[in-house]
């Protein structure tokens, strides 16, 4: 399906990709198989795609608007307006902390985020909030003279039907800077990753330069706040890095259309933007396995080299890195022998991490992903089908082997208990909050991968090994706390063998 930039509202992931947030039908291989077939009749996703498990009990998830905050809210010379009651503004706290720490890690000047809540009240729900939106846009301009102003919508403004697009267009003309509406009402998508797409949709429509002057050594890197492992790596190939979206400037975002290629650390995050840049501006997306483990990183570098015509340099780098990491890797493998790991992260990131764990000799017989995209946005260049070379689940299964207990669960802590009990891992790898605290109370240490680049590339294999050794040592803490904590779940639930049982019984 082509990306449609004509409308200001991004199509959500369920419609574009057939995304599901719950599935528990065996192994990774099964999920791969089911992903390629038509729904067998439950009617999920309009009967067109992969079936989804649905239950009555759910714990708090994450919404699209939060992903808008963590991307559009972290652009260094822009302002994000949150058109919402004050509660949505709560997110300013977490994304400020992450932003500041990210800036420090990247050696950029540390500053507070610039996000403004329109602070809507009860009367605005009746009479509309557009006047307040316009006021906040003007405040943003008067205070910061930003190079762009983004507007994130909310459940409340979506329901009352504020015409955010017209207000944005009016102020864009008045202020002579891009004013970009991002439609990200939480209730409009069951998975938060639609929020990434909402931001990227707005960037493609209103920020990216329409008449690019090509910079043939520039590579877009779609990432979050991770440490800069890309600059030294790409320098080996004679390429320069353009980090987007977090902590970039508006100009760095505008020049995305001028790059020679687009890469990322995770297809979930980069899918929409990378596909859009290719479709609209001819910037090739590197369609390959993700850069995790030797096989993935080799294939990824070779595809990047092919597209940027740097094959010789890439081969030198690949050989050099293999040799460099080999001795420590051999030691780490000895130290980690017999350990069992469990991965609980976003979809394609998990596929990458599992490959790295297996390079380290760690056994992985269980994993959950918070959602599953059966396909990504990019098209196969030779046909009208999704691009198979980006199938990260397929690559994982085929290259590093099946994962017998593979589930999709939208960060649901109550299910995580039973899922961990199935496989009793020595440790877990996790991104996003909420699951590591439960694992801890079960005596299992977690490596929370705040720095998303930690396990990436050849050095990432070593990094992850070292981190696992560190957190295995923490086990003393977790065993002690487990012995002194009562979980908030009833014994009946803790005794359940099937964490998805409620989805299967009809209440």
């Amino acid at each position, binding site marked *: 399906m082509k990306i449609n930039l004509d409308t200001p509202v991004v199509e959500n992931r369920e419609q574009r990709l057939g995304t599901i947030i719950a599935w528990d039908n065996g192994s990774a291989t099964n999920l791969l198989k089911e992903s390629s077939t038509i729904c067998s009749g439950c009617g999920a996703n309009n009967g067109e795609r992969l079936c989804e498990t649905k239950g*009555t009990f759910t714990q708090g*998830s*994450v919404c699209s608007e939060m992903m808008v905050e963590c991307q559009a809210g972290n652009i260094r010379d822009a302002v994000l307006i949150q058109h919402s009651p*004050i509660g949505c503004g709560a997110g300013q706290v*977490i994304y400020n902390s992450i932003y500041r720490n990210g800036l420090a890690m990247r050696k950029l000047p540390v500053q507070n985020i610039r996000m403004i809540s329109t602070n809507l009240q009860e009367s605005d729900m009746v009479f509309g909030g557009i006047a307040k939106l316009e006021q906040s846009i003007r405040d943003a301009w008067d205070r910061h003279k930003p190079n762009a102003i983004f507007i994130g919508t909310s459940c409340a403004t979506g329901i009352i039907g504020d015409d955010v697009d017209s207000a944005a267009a009016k102020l864009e003309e008045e202020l002579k800077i891009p004013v970009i509406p991002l439609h990200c009402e939480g209730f409009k998508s069951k998975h938060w990753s639609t929020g990434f797409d909402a931001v990227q949709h707005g960037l493609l429509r209103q920020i990216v330069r329409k008449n690019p002057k090509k910079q043939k050594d520039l590579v877009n890197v779609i990432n979050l706040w991770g440490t800069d492992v890309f600059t030294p790596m790409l320098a080996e190939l004679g390429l320069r890095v353009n980090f987007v979206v977090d902590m970039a400037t508006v100009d760095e975002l505008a020049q995305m259309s001028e790059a020679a290629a687009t890469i990322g650390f995770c297809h979930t995050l980069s899918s929409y933007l990378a596909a859009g840049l290719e479709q609209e501006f001819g910037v090739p997306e590197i369609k390959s396995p993700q850069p995790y483990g030797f096989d993935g990183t080799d294939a990824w570098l070779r595809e990047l080299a092919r597209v940027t015509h740097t094959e010789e340099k890439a081969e030198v780098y690949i050989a050099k890195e293999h040799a460099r990491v080999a001795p420590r890797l051999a030691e780490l493998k000895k130290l980690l022998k017999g350990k069992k790991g469990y991965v609980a992260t976003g979809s394609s990131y998990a596929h990458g991490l599992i490959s790295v764990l297996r390079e380290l000799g760690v056994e992985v017989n269980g994993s959950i992903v918070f959602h599953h995209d059966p396909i990504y946005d990019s098209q196969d260049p030779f046909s009208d089908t999704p691009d198979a070379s980006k199938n990260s689940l397929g690559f994982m299964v085929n290259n590093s082997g099946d994962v017998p207990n593979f589930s999709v669960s939208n960060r649901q802590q109550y299910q995580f208990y039973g899922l961990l009990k199935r496989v009793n891992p020595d440790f877990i790898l996790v991104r996003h909050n909420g699951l590591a605290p439960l694992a801890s109370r079960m005596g299992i240490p977690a490596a929370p991968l705040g720095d998303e680049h930690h396990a990436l590339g050849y050095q990432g294999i070593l990094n992850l090994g070292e981190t696992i050794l560190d957190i295995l040592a923490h086990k003393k803490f977790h065993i002690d706390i487990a012995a002194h904590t*009562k979980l908030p*779940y009833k014994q009946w639930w803790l005794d359940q063998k099937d964490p998805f049982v409620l989805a299967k019984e009809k*209440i």
Partner: protein
Amino acid sequence: MGDIKSDDKKLEIAQEETVKTNSIEQVRYVCSLGAMHSASAIPGVIPITHCGPGCADKQYMNLAFYNGFQGGGYGGGSVVPSTNSSEKEVIFGGAERLTELIESTVKILDADLFVVVTGCISDLVGDDVESVVSDFQKQGVPIVVAETGGFRGNNFTGHELITKAIIDQYVGEYDGLKEKGTVNVWSLLPYHNTFWRGDLTEIKRILQGIGLKVNILFGHESEGVSEWKNIPKAQFNLVLSPWLGLQTAEHLKNKYDQPYLHVPIIPIGGMETSAFLRNVVDFAGLDVDKAEAFIQAEEKIYYNYLGDFSDFYAEYWWGLPAKFAIIGDSAYNIALTKFLVNQLGLVPGKQIVTENPPEQYRDAIRKLYQNVAQDVSTEVEFEEDSYTIHEKIRNTDYGHKPPIIFGTTWERDLAKELKTAIVEVGFPASYEVVISRAYIGYRGALTLLEKIYTTTVSASA
């Protein structure tokens, strides 16, 4: 009075520079739904949220995690059930979805009481949540509901909604005898105040010391719902905050014919704490000798330690702060002002109250600052938008050196800009790890001194 006049002039200039609008940059409170934390702050109580998919997590991560890294406790954080409302609930209503969520929650989660709270979606669509919940109440499920849609107010007003819901729907009617010497305490806002756990522990300790039986109601020192069931039996309510809890106390006065004592300034340090305790002793008619024995013993300990500290305070070579600025909720703002002025002899530079107290309480709060000491009178401003707050702090003349700032993470860069120290004392405190630390009473005051002067001294070299 001369000083106040010149302050007034400065105030006028500052207000000309920044016009107040609806905008809030860098939030200092969250929405009513954030008060779901007042439910999970009661041992054994779990909130059930009927709202969009991000609301519960958003309130938790910001109020309880990146604010002192307090943790969600037994039934908060990622445990909290949520309807994660979708387009379907927006179009067709969410009552059915809430019903099935409550049914399954009761099966899975082990709680003494469930508190249903709602978000913008339910309140805008007009779900009849009261009727949904009352069906469960009729079946004997311990459950109450409060409508806390984000546009209705902030987490302070949400706190009183939730408190009232538990009292009216769970504690219920009572016309039996009162227990002399028992008090219900309504004080700091759980989780929003970064140090609430330690502070409530200290409040309970000193009130017990003077002979009271204390229903502290929130935090690890609370006995949970059994304590809440005992609320109507208490001799009186103590509202220990500038305004939060007054509505609850008024309600309890009407409902259970229970008097209340309002002490607007939370005591910090020997002087203030002893005066506070004597005030309570007097109001409750407690045994004066017994109470005095406790006060004397506590003062002895406090002043022994303060004496040790006085060597440093008297002759530290490299300069100590002389003025201070406070940006924060009225509860800590006035409490700290009182302590810093009267115990340490610091000079107030700027006081900004940030939680948007209801208009009817503002004059009373202003008066507290005007009478901060016999010879010190100062002004307070009310402002919620951090851009405006920072402009006010910048545009104040503090004399020969900048004030030490008591504020939040939002003031970290401002402190660097003004070349001064910052102590993060309120939401959000993203660079503090807080477990059981208290800053109030006798013991908390000493911890606070350690924090202030470790911050000052460690910046020396």
